[in-house]
């Protein structure tokens, strides 16, 4: 992530490996007081009592805020997203969940006069540090958008695009096949690789977008309401795929569909804004089963049971 020094990168990934190793040991051995302090529980010093997962966090957000000009979109976000798990962000529209998601790969940089405060640590590196190259951040942390947005190119070129940009080694054909297979699309398109991506159905296009993101070999994938423009069958396919992918990738997704968050995610964060687009806060964060069976906060309960407002 640091542009100049690859040495530092190596050290960092080694540290991350060690940390992961320690986390596994912790989970297998008996839980001690130390787990609680080194684990993410103690790290979240949110104004609200927010429970965080007892797993090694890949994303560690501390007091994150985003301002658009003078308007504060979100503030005071403390959240740890664990590795190789699906973390869902839910909440009413305008609560800042997409804004928060876009903090995780510096997509907010692209919006003029957006200002991000606090720190977003990814494997221990603050991705908003001056020495960090946002292009590299986005390469490591892929993103899938609300509307399928394949390039007006062939299926093959769509998948190969990111890999070529990033100077992927090895056979491009193999990369394309592997990515499409991972995205559960290979069998449907293997004979039409030269056809325009725009000829695919919405669900296929979205899986193509996932394949395109996978071809860059990211470590984490952000998904911004990936199924909101898809029919139920395509939605279930994508959901299945997300469960499949989380064996190897850290996934953070925004969804409007609570059932989807319940079906797909391991951890759920509920956000709420003072008013539309203003001062979004994290209300409650915890294991999905807990959030959906007995949330601690009345506001979460009201939202989840559909008695919001």
């Amino acid at each position, binding site marked *: 992530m640091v542009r100049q020094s690859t040495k530092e990168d190596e050290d960092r990934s080694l540290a991350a490996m060690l940390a992961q190793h320690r986390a596994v040991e912790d989970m297998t051995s008996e839980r001690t007081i130390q787990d609680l302090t080194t684990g993410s529980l103690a790290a979240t010093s949110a104004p609200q009592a927010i429970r965080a997962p007892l797993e090694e966090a890949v994303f560690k957000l501390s007091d994150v805020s985003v301002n658009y000009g003078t308007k504060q979109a979100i503030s005071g976000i403390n959240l740890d997203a664990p590795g190789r798990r699906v973390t869902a962000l839910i909440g009413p529209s305008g609560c800042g969940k997409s804004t928060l998601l876009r903090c995780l*790969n510096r*997509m907010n940089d*692209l919006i*003029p006069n957006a200002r991000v405060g606090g720190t977003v640590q990814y494997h221990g590196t603050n991705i908003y540090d001056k020495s960090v190259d946002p*292009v*590299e*951040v*986005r*390469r*490591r942390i*892929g*993103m899938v*958008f609300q*509307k399928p*947005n*394949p*390039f*007006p190119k062939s299926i093959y070129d769509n998948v190969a*695009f*990111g890999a070529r*940009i*990033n100077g992927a080694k090895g056979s491009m054909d193999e990369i394309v096949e592997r990515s499409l297979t991972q995205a559960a699309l290979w069998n449907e398109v293997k004979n039409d690789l030269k056809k325009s991506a725009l000829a695919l159905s919405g669900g296929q296009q979205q899986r193509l*977008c996932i394949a*395109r*993101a996978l071809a*860059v070999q990211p470590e984490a994938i952000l998904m911004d309401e990936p199924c909101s423009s898809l029919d139920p069958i395509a939605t279930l396919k994508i959901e299945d795929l997300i469960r499949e992918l989380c064996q190897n990738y850290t996934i953070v997704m925004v969804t409007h569909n609570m059932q989807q968050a319940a079906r797909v995610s391991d951890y759920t964060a509920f956000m709420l804004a003072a008013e539309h687009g203003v001062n979004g806060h994290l209300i409650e964060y915890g294991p999905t089963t807990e959030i959906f069976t007995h949330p601690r906060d009345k506001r979460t309960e009201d939202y989840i049971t559909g008695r919001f407002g």
Partner: protein
Amino acid sequence: MRNQRRRLFNRLMIGVVTGCAALSVGIMFLIIGYVTAKGVTHISVTFLTHEPTSLGEPGGGIKHALVGTLILVTIAISIAVPLGIGAGIFVSEYASPRLALPLRFLADVLTGVPSIVIGVFIYSLIVIQYGFSALAGGVALAVIMLPIVARTSEEALYLVPRDQREAALALGTPKWRMILQIVLPTAAPAVVTGCLLATARAAGETAPLLFTALGNNFYSTNVKEPIAAMPVIIYRYALTPYPSLHDQAWATAFILVGVMLVLSAITRIVVSRSIR
């Protein structure tokens, strides 16, 4: 009663606007028709492939002007298209809104500057020092094309959907590669349209060439020498007292109008393709 009056007024208005439209289109057809009628009969292979004869003698052709215009336009395109697209990219992709606004305004003003003023400008800038030349003419035409290319390509780039850009950037694409490999190809049809329109406009300009390329009665491909051009030929021949040169002027005008029509038609086709 009132209803009737309203209906009458309605019909009147429809009549007026229909008349306006008919008049505009009619004038255009009149020009094309008149030019065709006067010019088409004088077109021949000799006319297209021969240089002019001595003054006042019948026969001869406009090979020198055809090639001259081709050279002038080529020079103008090779200057204006890269510069214009580059400027368009800068305004659309890199300039802050505070900078983009005045830049757009300046480009619009430049589009509106009378072409003869541009001719005088290039005259004082280049011709006074280096003399009349095809190069100076090409530069003058490039100045005319530049704002058109810049504005159309800027708008075309601006219209490329945000989700395409985000998709590219989210893959870890550097911005310049995103612009070159995603934004430009997507905007290409509209950019090409802008370039074609600008070319058509430049090919028909006379005034700036009088101060720069000057015109030449002989076949020349040397860009450092004065060069003939079709609009200049029309202007010069029309001012002579010889009927045979008047006829050649009409024929040249017909070719020029034909070239315009073809360029416009190509533009149309490119646009409709891109929409589909």
